Structures are given as C-alpha cells and as structure tokens.
C-alpha cells in the first residue's frame, strides 16, 4: 500500500520571535519541525490552531532551511489572532505552494521592483535571493511606497540594502511627517525618478490591488513588454492545492498556476485587480 501522504495535514512550527515592524505589521520567526525549503515567491498556508488558516509568502531568504519568517499585516480574523501570539507557541504549515519568481530569467538584466504595503514581504525574500546571485544581475532598483513614515517596514534591512553594491532603494510615503526627506506621493511617482534600460530589464510588482493596477499601467506606459512584468496575485484561498476553487481567476488556479504571473499571462482573465 502506498504511503498515506496527506496534503491537508499541516506540520508544526514553533514561533521563536515576534518583531514589530509597524503598528499593524509584525514579522513572525518560525522554526519548522521539519526541514523546509521554498522558492522565493512561493507561499505557505499557515494555521493558528483551531482558529483559521491563511496564505502568506515567506519574507525570509529561500536559502535558509531551518527558519522561516512571515511578515503579516493585521487585517481580520486569523491575522488578528496571530498578532496576539507569543514566542513558544506553535503554528501549522502546509506548503510551499505555487510558482515563485523565475529568478533565472532575471540573469544579465536590471530588475525593477515596485512594492507597497505588505507587498514588501515577498519582495524581501526575493531581495535576499537576488543579493545571493547579484554577480549575475546588472542592477536592482527597489521602489517602495507606504502610507506614512511610521508604516515603513524593515527599516534596518533598508539601511543595509542601501549599502549593497548594485542595489538602489527609492521610497515614498502618501503622507509625510517633518522628518521625512524622501519622496511624497503614491508609489508610482518613484518611477519618474528611475533610470533604467527597459530593453534589458524586468519589473516585479507586489502590493495591494490598486497599487498593482496603477503600477502595471505605468510600467506598460514606460515601455515594459507585458511578458517582462511579474505580478504576485492575491486571491481568496483555502486549499493552496488547486482543488477548492476559491482562488480561481478565469482559467487559472492562482494557488497552483501562480501566484506569480506575467502580465501577458493574465491580462485577459477577469477581475485581476479584483
């Protein structure tokens, strides 16, 4: 009899640390009971025992196998419970699921990354990956927007990134305070400041739906071909396995066929910006 391989059963991971990134965003450091490997851009289904399960993209490096970080915005029921959790407690993990970023296709190119809000979580994982292969890349430009300076996450990480050769960071906030000396405005304003050789570049967009929409439109306007714009799509999800139907976006199961798609792949599907 073949082994009883149960796709619905999570394995356990111990919460070892909780980092407060902003009033609404925390990073949870998890130590899985089993060795855990994922590709950057893939996601996991994370459970709070007896409460609920939701999809999150790890924000840590895909090169690290014994620890895993997820950065979570408090938005509702499950994430509300999660924000009250303390180190020492256990969570459940299923995954990794889906198709991540095809980093091999970024070789010898400039990578332009556009992120907003909690969209920075998967992007940080991608950045870790890109730093590890930076000798194969021309340049990486991160454009990151948040509502206010207080909502800017990963502050120490940004400072480090700014010192990394080939990496450039541009930031904007919708509403500045007196200490803010970077750009003000929605994140797409940063694209006006970017110097990039579009013919030799790919773009990555991750963030709230409105940002994804206007970000993509702007990139198209700048001349990016549709197949060089990578989007990380967010849909309601339950199984992560291409079965429950919740994440259907036209003929795609976002959980299995995505969540990373090129704009060319999905532009004709319904409700892509919700």
């Amino acid at each position, binding site marked *: 009899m073949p082994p009883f391989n149960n796709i619905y059963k999570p394995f356990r991971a111990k919460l070892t640390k909780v980092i407060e990134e902003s009033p609404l965003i925390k990073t949870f450091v998890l130590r899985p009971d089993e060795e855990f490997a994922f590709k950057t851009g893939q996601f996991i289904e994370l459970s709070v025992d007896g409460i609920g399960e939701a999809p999150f993209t790890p924000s840590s490096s895909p090169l690290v196998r014994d620890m895993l970080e997820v950065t979570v*915005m408090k938005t509702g029921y499950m994430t509300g419970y999660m924000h009250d959790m303390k180190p020492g407690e256990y969570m459940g993990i299923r995954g990794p699921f889906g198709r991540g970023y095809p980093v091999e296709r970024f070789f010898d190119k400039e990578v332009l990354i556009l992120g907003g809000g909690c969209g920075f979580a998967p992007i940080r994982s991608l950045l870790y990956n890109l730093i590890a292969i930076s000798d194969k890349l021309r340049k990486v430009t991160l454009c990151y927007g948040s509502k206010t300076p207080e909502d800017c996450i990963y502050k120490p990480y940004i400072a480090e990134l700014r010192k990394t050769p080939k990496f450039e960071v541009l930031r904007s906030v919708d509403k500045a305070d007196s200490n803010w000396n970077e750009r003000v405005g929605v994140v797409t304003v940063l694209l006006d400041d970017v110097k990039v050789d579009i013919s030799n570049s790919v773009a990555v967009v991750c963030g709230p739906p409105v940002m994804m929409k206007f970000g993509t439109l702007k990139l198209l306007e700048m001349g990016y071909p549709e197949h060089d714009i990578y989007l990380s799509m967010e849909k309601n999800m*339950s199984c992560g396995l291409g079965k429950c139907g*919740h994440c259907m976006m036209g*003929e795609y199961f976002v959980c299995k066929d995505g969540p990373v798609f090129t704009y060319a792949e999905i532009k004709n599907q319904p409700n892509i910006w919700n």
Partner: protein
Amino acid sequence: MNIYYSIKRDSWENSLLRLSSSYIIYGVTGNGQSTDYDLISERNISSLVYNRPKPATPLKTFFLPVRENVTADTVKEVPRIIIGTPNCDIEALGILDEIYLDESFEDVFYRRRRESTIIISSDCLEIQEHCHCTAYNINPFSTGKADLAVILRHDDIILRAISEKGIELAEKSFNAVRSDDRTLASFVESRHHETVEILNRTGKGLPDYRTTGRLVKAAGESVWKRYSSKCVSCGACTTICPTCTCFLLIDKPGFHKVKQMDACQYPGFERVAGGEDSLGKLPSRFRNRYMCKYVWKPAKFHSTACTGCGRCIEACIGKINKNELFRELAK
C-alpha cells in the same frame, strides 16, 4: 468494447447478496419520479430499479463527502459496489479525477475511495424532463469510463462489459452467460438509439456543445441580471451538481481541518482581506458558475464540467432554468 451477458434477475440478485459479505452494496431504489441510492440488503434487493434516469444524489458524494475531517491519518476503506449510476454521473468523474488525482497534489482520501469502489452503470432507457446529456455530447449509456453496465429486460438482466475488468466481473462475480450472437446486442443498441432520439427531441433549440462557451462569454450583463434576479444564492445548483466540488477548509483544535463543500454561489466565496469581493454582486456571482462550467474549466481540463444531468434546473427554488437561458443565447 461491448460484450454482452445475460443472467436471470433472481440469480443476479443472489450473486449481489453473496457479494455483500465482502462489499457494501449501494443501489438505486425508489418509485415514481424519484429514485436514489440506498444501502442494499436482502430486505430491499428486489426494489432495485434499472434504466431509470439519474438518482437524486450525484455520484460525487461517494468520493467527496459533504463534510469530513481531512487531517485523519487513515481513511476507512470499505470495498463498495455501486449499482445503477447513469452515464452522466460516470462522465462527471472525469473532472473529479483530474482535480483530485492530480499527481502534484493527490487527495489520498479520494484515491482510496475511488480504488475501493466498483461502479456498475445503468443505461438510461427513460428520461426526465430536464435531462439533456446528449446536448453535451454525452450518451445516456456508458461508453468509456465504466466497466460494466446493466439493462433489465423482462426478468433477465443483460450485462454489457465495457472493459476487461467488466468481463471479469460479469464472468467471475455474476457467473453470467456470454452471448456472442447479435440478439442481445441489437436489442440493447435499438433501445439506446430510442433514448438518444427522445433526448435529441427534448433538447431541441439547445446550442451545440462546442458553442456554449462562446455564447456564455458573449452574453451581456442584462442576461445575467435578468436570470439572476430570481436567484437567492442558496447554492443548491452547485451542491447537487455532479461536477461541482469546491470546498472550504475549516480549522479545528489540534491543527485539524474539516473539509466542507462550498459554493461560488455563496456570498463571500472570493472575499479577500480588506473586504474586496470580486463576486460580491449577485449577477457576477451567478455568471461565475456559467463561466466556470462552460469557459474556464473546459480550457483547463480535458473533461466536461457539465454533463447535462439537469439536476440544477430541478433543484433551483428560483425556478431558474439554464436550458431556457441557453435557448435564448442560441437564438
């Protein structure tokens, strides 16, 4: 393949009762218009009905229970025989298999149940008002996907073996006598033909199955608004549909998960954090079911997502008739 066997009804029933020591046997029983699956024993074996149109319950519930704990470490594997399944429901297994036996994420509960179940199909020689399988290029009798089919003729049971496994069943489990002359074959074939004729007549005006997708895609907002105005989002149409298998995982203490049937017709099915819901409005939710069945699933899978069983029409408390909608689109 079609190999014919014949067996007296009482020895067929005796064989089934003998098999019931090693199998749980379900069969279609009932009277009048309504038939459904029942656990078969000596008590009710004579009330098995044959060659009637689809039973009330779709076959999928034998493999995908409405609600079950899917974090268990075993699945109760009771060898089962199911008798009397019409071909529309057998064809519906195509898409279920594609989804649940998908090799990258195989559902072990589905796999084990599927493997421990023998399905004996029944050829439809009668139809119900809303049956329209032939409109979707599906025969009212099993062709490829079943092993064995049964036809009742007076006091004889005719077995039609469709696969090697079907031959083995007929010969070893039922000791049926193989008939190599054409009498049984031509009797059965002419009955098949008559049923198809009736279905073609009642299905008049329905669009060719190769054009349904295009018609659904092209239908304007006013069509969806008008037809959905009587929809109460009860989900009966998807629950009863042999090809709809959407579900929700519900968390229980101990990292357990209960897998429960869900429906795109329920509000909130696609709601994401922050409250956005692409199917929040009734007409778009209603249209989603049609797009899924006739446009998206056919693009993604090799099997049909609508077998024309007609159950969704019978189940709808808003009396929404999808065939009326299709006839209108086809005009």
